[in-house]
């Protein structure tokens, strides 16, 4: 008899085991929903799965009576736009500042303590400041995400840069590299896979900040909708929206992982 630590599931087993918790969750929900609805047909807490279909039908495929829009897609578009702009800005800022910190010791001394301290500011605590200074428009929401995750990206990129063996940097200099060419030919390409990792790991935070900002001041967006219908205890809307957000986040994570494997195959081996 082998030890449990040495037993590995086959391909089918891996897929089945991976699906099992999802199946259990769905089953538990259906069971709980049925039980509650039998006791009280007006129960709002665990709506029947059929009501989710109604909701999705209503929100995704029918035009809203008041605005004439398909709310599901308007919300998704608004949220994704904010999120992607913010991730783009954070990624670009994080990469360039992290690279500068990694390449130039003077910049490191200048910026790293500041970034470390700045990153400790709880972003939600300064959300009111952002709304006061930037207004209630898109800028404040994007700024919240950017402020929330850029310091982490900078520090992670700078950390990765400091992990690159010194031998490589010396070697590049003996091959004629300047600080600039050293940065763009030796450091930058080795930081890009880490940028993908960092953005992946920060996706959860980014969504958190996005939904927080939308909950407080917005007229559209996935987070806005959830907090709007909360007033009516509309679990039949909230739950599909949460599942949709989860799906989007999962797809982004998967896409980034695939991108890393495709564009940086050399970074996979180690």
């Amino acid at each position, binding site marked *: 008899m082998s030890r449990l630590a040495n037993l590995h599931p086959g391909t089918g087993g891996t897929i089945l085991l991976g699906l099992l918790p999802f199946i259990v969750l769905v089953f538990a929900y259906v069971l709980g929903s049925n039980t509650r609805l039998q006791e009280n047909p007006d129960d709002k807490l665990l709506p029947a799965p059929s009501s989710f279909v109604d909701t999705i039908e209503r929100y995704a495929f029918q035009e809203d009576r008041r605005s004439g829009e398909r709310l599901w897609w308007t919300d998704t578009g608004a949220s994704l736009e904010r999120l992607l702009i913010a991730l783009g800005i954070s990624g670009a800022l994080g990469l360039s500042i992290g690279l500068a910190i990694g390449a130039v010791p003077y910049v490191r001394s200048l910026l790293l303590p500041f970034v470390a301290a700045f990153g400790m500011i709880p972003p939600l605590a300064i959300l009111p400041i952002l709304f006061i200074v930037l207004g209630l428009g898109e800028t404040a929401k994007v700024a919240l995400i950017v402020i929330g995750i850029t310091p982490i990206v900078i520090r992670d990129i700078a950390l990765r840069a400091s992990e690159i*063996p010194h*031998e*490589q940097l*010396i*070697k*590049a*200099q*003996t*091959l*004629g*590299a*300047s600080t*600039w*060419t050293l940065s*763009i*030919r*030796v450091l930058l*390409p*080795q930081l890009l896979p880490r940028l993908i990792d960092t953005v992946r790991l920060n996706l959860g935070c980014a969504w958190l900040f996005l939904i927080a900002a939308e909950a407080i001041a917005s007229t559209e967006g996935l987070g806005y909708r959830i907090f709007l219908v909360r007033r009516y205890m509309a679990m039949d809307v909230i739950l599909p929206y949460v599942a949709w957000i989860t799906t989007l986040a999962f797809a982004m994570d998967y896409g980034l992982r695939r991108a890393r494997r495709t564009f*940086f*195959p*050399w*970074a996979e*081996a*180690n």
Partner: protein
Amino acid sequence: MAIVTIRRLWKEYGEQVVLENLNLTIADGEFVTIVGASGCGKTTLLRMLLGVEKPTRGEILIDGAPLVYEPAPERGIVFQRYSLFPHLTVTRNLLLGLELSGAHLTGRLFGRARRQALEQVHALLNEIGLYAARDKYPSQLSGGMQQRLSIAQSVICQPKILLLDEPFGALDPGITADMHELILRLWEKNRMTVFMVTHDVKESFQLGTRLLVFDKKRHDPHAPDAYGATVTYDIPLNRRLRAVA
């Protein structure tokens, strides 16, 4: 090729004297092998020649001019490990040297310049027997292949001086003979002055035209750091004898 002159060179780290009063003149095209116990300053000397450390006192002259204490293309280096670029294929690892020295703004060559550089790279890959592995990444190569590539990478920029810091120390003994043949061939072809630090005394006799042994001349058991090492044996090796051996 370069004449290297070392005058009254001292290196101290605080109280600890690593090298004391080193005086050497190395002729053009010499293959200097350096041996000595651990911590006797062999690598420190190499790092000073490389330009990443400064002497406490004294000076190093290259062809009569003071050495610039910063890594420079005239002095190539092969470390024991980590000196390849993991994100570049074998071809591009070699190409990088030509690109960095040829394009200061972009660090990349384009068009005809790139094609010419690639021809040079492919010729060198054939010479070191890595042409078949040209599209692999360094992590896919064996240790011996990695060191071959690292040596070729340093040589492609035609440095006057080549510094080798225990380049074969991490390799299987079986493949070091091939490596010796390669390094001698490249040395003879490119006419560089070579400094090689090694732990392997046999290797130092086989490869060098001049062997330097580093050791402490004086030793105070109560203050082991008080005296530094210097050259205790300076042995000229006859190349013909080496060929027979």
